[in-house]
């Protein structure tokens, strides 16, 4: 897409943000006295801050961009990621799991695993997490640098190194607390930066109801890849297209895969075990605050679909209305190709339009809408159009979509200079915050679970504090390396993310059994986890999705099953891996002896931990009660968008 021109006001807002973020780091530096202060915030953060940081850590720019893209591709059904996936998992974490994470006084999730099981399980989890989190950081920074390059014309290397330097500075000074504070800042930036865009988009369409009507028209004119006609509510109803079966919704999934695969395995696996988010809850002031953190986070999380998913739906509706001068951006095409296409249009006449259309399609390397192109050729023959007008006409006729470009295209459309600066700074903030979050999580896991546990045990706290600082620098440098890797080797990144999916899928089974069944043994947990990961890889090796040929996307050993879409394949894989891990852990635990006595496990397992009596809290403030209320709110939302 064409680069945006920023005005002085936009740059001022951006610089103000960077200045404040660095200022936060500097102001916090004086409070960093111990390694605990630096790496875990030493249990000092108020609940509302940890709550907002909790969801903010997850709300990176990739989520913003990705959710808008999914909103365009799948409609309101995308909200399941939030309403069926995240919310129940967060409530479960708050009510049932935080007592063990926080009560055990573990400084990290892998450390909890060491206390509950043994070093093998801790090692497996911490190594996997450390590697994954660095790659996640790199992916985020690569996407940021590419965006700044495409959008503002900034040099990729410069953008990458400067943004990384800013993150390095404030994390080096203020540690985890800096990261948490900037995550909260980022949260407000995102809400305040994008709310106007959503408002203007809906106003332009004539309101929510009008948008839905446009979406229904789009649905009735869209045919699924396998030939079925979508029902009118394919984009506007969250449940009915799902219940109708995988052939009837754009996501290509069925009810079981959605609820069990996404809703249970993947969501609980992420929200309940991923140290990136759990670390924020562990930084809370006390047990009650730690349990309330995910609950506090659940409230904005429920409302976020309206901020991040609706833009995608707005984009689809706008594209379908001719007079709005908007279309979902096409994939990026070289200027050279456009120039060739313009030349073809100028030399074509209505008589040989069909040939011209085909030539243009080949020049651009994309599918084109022949009706629009033919009318463009006719227009040009009737009254000589300018080159710019012809180019716009060609641009509008490209029939392929770059959904990842949706949120930015809406920002470009509605934001004048000023608001534009705010929205772009919000996007920038979320990328940098993503890097900071990943680096601080990496920092804690490396310093405590790998360095202190295996490389240099028994040193002074000053030593580990220093190690934490060194690791911050190393973490940033490794992220930059991962970013370059991601930018060079697209396919390799796909493989890496695939492997991470394999590792995450069975994880929740291990935690579930570990926390709620005292009979689970270290050997059972370790072999179960290993087996779960292996079964993920196996499942992937024998299944394909949609029209994918066997290869990186699966099915390279044999094709035993083909799923309607990659998402469906993903969700079923998760369900399968979870089940294998669960069964293996259970049976092997029954056959082996636990290395821990009941005394050692007190506070780590449900049956050996005294129930928390929150007698000083009124009934309605107890985590269990709040959890139920939130679930009811979530159910109401599901019902409204039925």
């Amino acid at each position: 897409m064409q680069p945006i021109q920023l005005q002085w006001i936009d740059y001022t807002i951006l610089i103000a943000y960077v200045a404040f973020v660095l200022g936060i780091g500097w102001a916090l530096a004086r409070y960093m006295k111990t390694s605990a202060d630096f790496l875990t915030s030493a249990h000092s953060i108020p609940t509302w801050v940890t709550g907002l940081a909790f969801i903010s850590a997850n709300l990176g720019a990739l989520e913003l961009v990705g959710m808008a893209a999914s909103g365009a591709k799948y409609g309101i059904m995308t909200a399941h990621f939030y309403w069926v996936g995240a919310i129940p998992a967060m409530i479960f974490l708050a009510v049932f799991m935080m007592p063990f994470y926080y009560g055990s006084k573990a400084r990290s999730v892998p450390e909890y695993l060491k206390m509950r099981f043994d070093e093998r399980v801790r090692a497996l989890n911490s190594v996997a997490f450390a590697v994954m989190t660095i790659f996640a950081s790199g992916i985020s920074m690569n996407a940021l640098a590419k965006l700044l390059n495409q959008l503002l014309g900034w040099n990729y290397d410069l953008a990458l190194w400067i943004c990384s330097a800013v993150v390095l500075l404030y994390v080096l000074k203020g540690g985890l607390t800096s990261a948490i504070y900037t995550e909260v800042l980022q949260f407000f930036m995102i809400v305040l930066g994008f709310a106007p865009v959503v408002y203007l988009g809906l106003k332009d369409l004539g309101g929510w109801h009008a948008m839905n009507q446009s979406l229904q028209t789009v649905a009735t004119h869209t045919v699924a890849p396998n030939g079925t006609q979508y029902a009118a509510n394919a984009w506007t109803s969250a449940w009915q297209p799902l219940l109708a079966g995988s052939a009837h919704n754009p996501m290509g999934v069925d009810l079981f895969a959605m609820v069990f695969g996404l809703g249970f395995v993947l969501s609980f696996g992420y929200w309940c075990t991923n140290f990136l988010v759990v670390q924020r809850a562990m930084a809370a002031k006390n047990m009650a605050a730690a349990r309330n953190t995910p609950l506090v986070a659940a409230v904005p999380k429920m409302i976020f679909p309206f901020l991040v998913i609706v833009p995608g739906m707005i984009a689809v509706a706008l594209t379908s209305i001719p007079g709005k001068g908007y279309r979902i951006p096409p994939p990026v095409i070289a200027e050279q190709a456009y120039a060739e296409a313009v030349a073809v249009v100028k030399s074509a006449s209505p008589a040989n339009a069909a040939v011209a259309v085909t030539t243009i399609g080949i020049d651009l390397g994309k599918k084109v809408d022949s009706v629009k192109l033919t009318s463009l050729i006719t227009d040009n023959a009737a009254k000589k159009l300018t080159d710019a007008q012809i180019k716009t006409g060609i641009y509008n006729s490209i029939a392929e979509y770059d959904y990842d470009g949706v949120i930015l295209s809406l920002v470009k459309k509605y934001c004048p200079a000023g608001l534009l600066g705010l929205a772009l700074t919000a996007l920038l903030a979320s990328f940098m915050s993503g890097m900071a979050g990943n680096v601080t999580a990496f920092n804690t896991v490396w310093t405590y679970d790998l360095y202190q546990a295996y490389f240099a045990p028994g040193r002074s706290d000053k030593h580990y504090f220093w190690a934490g600082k060194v690791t911050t620098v190393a973490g940033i440098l490794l992220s930059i390396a991962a970013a370059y890797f991601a930018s060079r080797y697209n396919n390799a990144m796909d493989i890496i993310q695939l492997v991470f999916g394999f590792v995450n899928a069975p994880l929740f089974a291990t935690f579930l059994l570990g926390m709620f069944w005292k009979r689970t043994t270290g050997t059972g947990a370790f072999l179960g986890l290993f087996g779960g990961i292996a079964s993920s890889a196996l499942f992937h090796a024998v299944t394909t999705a949609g029209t994918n040929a066997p290869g990186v996307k699966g099915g390279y050993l044999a094709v035993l099953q083909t799923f309607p879409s990659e998402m469906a394949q993903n969700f079923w894989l998760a369900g399968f891996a979870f089940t294998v891990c669960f069964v293996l852990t259970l049976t092997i635990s029954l056959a082996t002896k636990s290395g821990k006595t009941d005394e050692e496990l007190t506070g780590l397992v449900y049956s050996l931990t005294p129930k928390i009596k929150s007698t000083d809290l009124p009934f309605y403030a107890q985590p269990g009660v709040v959890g139920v209320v939130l679930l009811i709110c979530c159910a109401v939302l599901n019902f409204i968008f039925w």
Partner: protein
Amino acid sequence: MGLDIRWPIGLMFTLIGALLTGYGLLKSDVSMSLGININLVWGVVLLVFGAAMVIGAMRGGAAKK
């Protein structure tokens, strides 16, 4: 932890709010934003939000004493 987070949040949004409000008053270009001077309107909203945060931070500091 020492620094009340409401200070930086409040100050930053007050500053950005003031910038946007000023810019909205200077140049009311409403062509993109459907006839609404969105910089002015939203600038005021941010100002109010920032001020509320700063007031919260000041009262929080006073309460401790």
